[in-house]
């Protein structure tokens, strides 16, 4: 009985995180973008600095009519947002935020593999949306999404494999237990590759070619309205949370910090993830969009060789120190 209660509590906690953190990232994005671009942004809703703007946005989305185009494939069209969103919820289950037993939703033996495998499934949602909309812009967006995923999945996996080699385990808490501070410089290349590839997998600027609004309106999501569109947006922000959490755990030492991990571990994890989320927003504001061919070239000719070099480096150092 106690066990069932424990599981239920963990699920509820992860679900709350899943509902709250993406919204916090979204709100931060509003504010940070406004400051960086020297404009006001939404300032009126709720009074102080427009804090209630997200609520207003949510109400707006819920009020809009849910339209399915006449030529669309109804069921696939309607199912797509759920397929895009749910994988991120599952990945959140396995990300540990502290050293204790209770600081992870569910300890999975092959956590790294689980996280990357399930994250890849989310892209199926964009593909389904792109095809089922019966709209050529959507189809183009779907195509670009698929090409992007195929290109960036490989460097992401290789970078994660490097950390798994270093730690000698593929369990996320296990990797953190094996972490030492000098892993930071050691795995630096892998960290950059992982983060950049993750950004591309989330289709965040500067890798937002699949939703390039000046060319193909909004890519695979062009035909969506109301709550289903909001679900896609939520998936993007949940993806940011997951990516920042994974990068923190794999490369930045998760709960390890200068003053020890006891009790304050989760603060370190959240702080590092928050800084990474800030960087994600920062990149969106400052970098122009990569063209499709530049985007593919970056992955195949730069990130893949770099991640292979990182694996070689990891192997050499590992053999030398053991």
């Amino acid at each position, binding site marked *: 009985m106690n066990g069932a209660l424990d599981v239920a509590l963990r699920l509820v906690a992860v679900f709350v995180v899943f509902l709250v953190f993406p919204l916090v990232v979204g709100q931060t994005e509003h504010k940070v973008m406004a400051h960086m671009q020297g404009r006001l942004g939404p300032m009126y809703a709720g009074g102080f600095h427009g804090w209630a703007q997200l609520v207003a946005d949510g109400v707006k989305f819920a009020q809009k009519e849910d339209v399915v185009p006449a030529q*669309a494939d109804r069921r*696939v069209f309607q199912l797509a947002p759920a397929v895009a969103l749910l994988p991120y919820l599952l990945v959140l289950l396995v990300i540990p935020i502290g050293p204790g037993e209770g600081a992870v939703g569910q300890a999975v033996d*092959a956590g790294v593999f689980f996280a990357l*495998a399930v994250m890849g*499934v989310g892209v199926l949602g964009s593909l389904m949306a792109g095809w089922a909309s019966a709209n050529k812009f959507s189809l183009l967006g779907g195509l670009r999404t698929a090409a992007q995923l*195929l290109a960036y999945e490989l460097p992401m996996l290789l970078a994660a494999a490097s950390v798994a080699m270093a730690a000698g385990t593929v369990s996320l808490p296990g990797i953190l237990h094996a972490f030492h501070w000098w892993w930071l410089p050691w795995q630096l290349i892998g960290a950059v590759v992982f983060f950049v590839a993750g950004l591309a997998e989330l289709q965040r600027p500067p890798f937002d070619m699949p939703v390039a609004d000046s060319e193909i309106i909004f890519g695979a999501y062009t035909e969506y309205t109301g709550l289903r569109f909001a679900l896609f947006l939520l998936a993007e922000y949940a993806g940011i949370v997951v990516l920042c959490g994974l990068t923190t755990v794999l490369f930045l030492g998760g709960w390890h910090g200068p003053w020890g991990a006891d009790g304050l571990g989760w603060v370190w994890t959240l702080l590092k993830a928050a800084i990474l989320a800030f960087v994600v927003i920062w990149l969106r504001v400052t970098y122009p969009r990569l063209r499709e061919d530049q985007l593919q070239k970056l992955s195949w000719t730069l990130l893949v060789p770099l991640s292979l070099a990182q694996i070689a480096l990891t192997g050499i150092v590992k053999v030398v120190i053991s």
Partner: protein
Amino acid sequence: MSLAPTLSLAAAPHGSLAAAPHGFLSPTGVEIAFLLVGLVTFGAALITVTTRQLVHAALWLVVALGGLAVEYLLLTAEFIAWVQVLIYVGSVVVLLLFGLMLTRAPIGRSPDADSDNRWVALAVATAAAVALVWVVTNAFRTTWIDLTGPAAGTTRVTGASLFRYWVLPFEALSVLLLAALVGAIVLSRKAKAKAKADADGDGDAGDEPAARTPAPVPAQKDGAR
């Protein structure tokens, strides 16, 4: 999924010979779940090959492959299950959908999504299934997976058996994959060179061969526009 009971698998090549006889009369929860998921997987696979809607077939394939991953999980092979999701659901199906969208993927039925070989295909599939089931049941008749003991399908166990007992097949397979990779590059380059020669020869022959390139870097064509 992650709630799957802590279980074990015959990852070790020398499965322990069953001492006690095993019966099927009082199935455990895991066995029932295994059977139900198997039925779903089988149904999805059937729809995959019978539906007239191409993209639906690919999506039902996702269900079938995902069902297989769940079966691996129930048999305690956690690592294999995630690899199944990563490779098949995450990459192979995405590649398939990419190919479909790039060539033709009409909404609704494709009138030509039918084959005159369907009875031959059915016969071959049945024969293959019977042979596989017969061989596997005969080969592993005495191997039983202990679902209640310590998990024997963990990454550590799988990795150890892979790199201790099965290193040679593993390496041979990687050489085979490398050969396939090189072959794909050779084929795609040949098609490209031919397209170029055609374009040099007569003016209008640029479009057709280029579209056939397997295109490991598909989007480069975009940039050349």
